[in-house]
C-alpha cells in the first residue's frame, strides 16, 4: 500500500526528514511515533499529497502522491489533526455533503454507525463535544469508503473512556480490511492497535518492529528489584545476586538477561532466611521506556513537528 525509499525533505538549510524507508502492507496498522519536531507531520503530509518532497521515492496505492489526482484521493481517507466542524450544518448534512464528492460513497447511516454517532445525526456540528467531533472527522474520512486511512493523533485530548471507544472504532476498521497509517504520541495506543511500529527522531527512523519486538524489547534484560531486609547489605547476597546495585527508593536492582535463575536464587535465599521481600518485582522495559531511550538524545530542540 505504501512504499517509501530514501525520503528527504529540507526547509532551507534545515533537513526535517533525512532519508526514511518504510513499507505498509494491505490491511496493516502502522503506528508512526516520534516527538514534536521529529519530522513526523512532514512525512505524513508528503504521503497524503499535501506537501512536496526534496528527494526520495514515494508510492502510495501505487501512485506518487505529489502527482495524485481525484481517483487517488477517492481511495485515501484523511483525518487531520486540526479540524473544526462545518459550521451551521448537522452531522448528517455534513456527511451527505462529503458523500457527494465520491462516486461510490458509503451510505451516511453506515458511516455514522461505524463511528458510533448515529444518535447525534441531527445535531448541529458546532454543538458536538470534542470526542464526538473527532468521531465525525473519522466518519468524514470513511464516507468515501477508502482503502487507506491516515489518522493524525486521533485521540489527543481524550479522556480514558473516549480513547478506548476510539480504539474500538480503529480496531473495527482493521477488521474491515482497511490499511491505517496512525500517527500518535501515546505508546499504549500504538501497543493496543499497531501491527507495526516505527519510531522517528530527528528525521530518521530510529527503530521499527512489532509492539513485542521493537527496540530489542523481546530480548531486553529483565530488572529484578526489591528492598533489602533490615540488617542485610548488598554484600550479603549470594551468587548471581551479588551483582545487585542500588535502585530507586532504597531498593536494589539486579539486571540480567535470564530472569528465571535470578528469581530462583533470590527466592530460595529469602525462604531460607524467612525474609518476606514484599515489594519484589521483575519487569522488562515498557514501550514507553524504549521510546524515551531511543528519542532522548536524538531529539533536536528546533524544527517543526
Amino acid at each position, binding site marked *: 500500500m505504501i512504499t517509501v525509499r530514501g525520503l528527504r525533505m529540507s526547509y532551507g538549510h534545515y533537513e526535517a526528514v533525512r532519508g526514511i524507508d518504510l513499507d505498509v502492507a494491505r490491511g496493516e496498522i502502522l503506528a508512526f511515533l516520534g516527538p514534536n519536531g521529529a519530522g513526523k507531520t512532514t512525512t505524513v503530509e508528503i504521503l497524503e499529497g*499535501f506537501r512536496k518532497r526534496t528527494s526520495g521515492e514515494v508510492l502510495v496505492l501505487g501512485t506518487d502522491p505529489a502527482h495524485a489526482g*481525484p481517483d487517488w*484521493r477517492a481511495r*485515501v481517507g484523511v483525518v487531520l489533526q486540526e*479540524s*473544526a466542524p462545518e459550521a*451551521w450544518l448537522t452531522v448528517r448534512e455534513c456527511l*451527505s455533503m462529503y458523500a457527494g*464528492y465520491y*462516486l461510490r460513497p458509503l451510505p451516511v447511516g453506515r458511516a455514522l454507525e461505524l463511528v458510533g454517532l448515529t444518535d447525534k445525526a441531527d445535531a448541529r456540528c458546532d454543538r458536538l463535544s470534542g470526542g464526538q467531533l473527532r468521531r465525525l472527522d473519522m466518519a468524514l474520512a470513511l464516507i468515501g469508503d477508502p482503502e487507506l486511512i491516515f489518522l493524525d493523533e486521533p485521540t489527543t485530548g481524550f479522556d480514558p473512556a473516549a480513547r478506548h471507544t476510539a480504539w474500538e472504532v480503529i480496531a473495527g476498521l482493521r477488521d474491515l480490511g482497511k490499511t491505517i497509517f496512525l500517527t500518535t504520541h501515546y505508546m499504549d495506543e500504538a501497543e493496543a492497535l499497531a501491527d507495526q511500529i516505527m519510531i522517528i527522531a530527528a528525521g530518521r527512523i530510529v527503530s521499527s518492529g512489532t509492539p513485542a519486538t521493537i527496540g530489542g524489547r523481546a530480548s531486553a534484560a529483565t530488572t529484578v528489584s526489591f528492598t533489602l531486609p533490615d540488617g542485610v547489605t548488598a554484600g550479603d547476597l549470594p551468587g548471581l545476586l551479588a551483582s545487585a546495585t542500588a535502585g530507586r527508593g532504597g531498593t536494589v536492582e539486579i539486571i540480567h538477561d535470564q530472569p528465571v535463575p535470578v528469581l530462583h536464587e533470590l527466592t530460595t535465599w529469602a525462604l531460607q532466611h524467612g525474609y518476606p521481600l514484599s515489594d519484589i518485582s521483575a519487569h522488562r522495559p515498557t514501550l514507553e521506556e524504549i521510546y524515551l531511550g531511543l528519542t532522548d538524545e536524538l531529539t533536536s530542540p528546533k524544527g517543526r513537528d
Partner: protein
Amino acid sequence: MTALSLVTHQARYDLRAFRRNTRARIFTLAVPVLLLLILVSLFHSGTVKSGGVTVKIAVYYVPHIAAMAIVGAGLINLLITLVAKRESGSLKRRRATPVPSWVLIAGDATTSVVSSVLIVVVLIAIGSLGFGMPVTGAALGLAAVETVIGAAAFCCLAYALGGLVANAESAGPMVQLSTLPVYFISGIYVPDNELPHWLLDVANVLPVRPMAVALQAAFVPATNGGQRFAALPMLVVLAWGVVGLLIAVRTFSWAPRRA
C-alpha cells in the same frame, strides 16, 4: 456525476449554511436595508444631483446601497467565512477528497451571487413600493445581469484578499478598514455631487463606484448620458474581478497558516 450537478450539490449546502448563519444574514441582508431607510429619511430635500441630472433621493440611494450590499455579500461575507474555514482546517479537509477546487470556488460564488441578487431585489422593491422609484422590465433585467457580474467579481477579490489575510481575527478589521473609505469616496453614504472631483476620479477606478454608477444607469439612463448600459464602469468591475482571480491563483492557500 457531472460537473454541474457537483456544483449544484456544493452550492446547496453552502446556501444552507448561509441561511443558518445569523451574522451573515444580518450583515448582508439587514444592514443594507436599514442603511437605505435611514439615509433616505435623512435627506428632506427629496432630490439630489447625480450624473448631471436631478433625481429623487431614493433613486440615488437604492443603486448605491445595492452596490454596497453586493460588496458585503460577495466580498466581505465570503472573505470572513473563507478565512475562518481555512484556519479551522475545513478547507484542507475538503482538499483531501476528490472534489476539484473549482467546484468549491463555484459553490462559494453561487452563494455570493444568490445572496447578492436577493438583497438587490429587496432594495429595489423598497425603492419602488416605498419611494416611487421607476422600475421597468429592462431596468430589472440589466440590473440583475450587472449584479451577477459584480458578485462574481467581488467573489474573486475575496479569494485574492484571502491569500493576503493571515487569520480570521484580522479578516474583519482589515476588510472594514479598506471598504469604509472606499464607500465614502464612492458616494455610497454622501451623494456624489458633494464630493470633490479628484476623489471621484480615484473612486472611478476602484470597483465600488462603477458598480453603483452602472446600477443607477440601469434605472435612470439620464445619469449616464442616456445610456442604460454603463459599459465602461462594468468593464472596471470586471477588470477587478480578473485581477483578483490572478492574485488568488498565485497566493491562495487551502491549508491553515501557522506562525
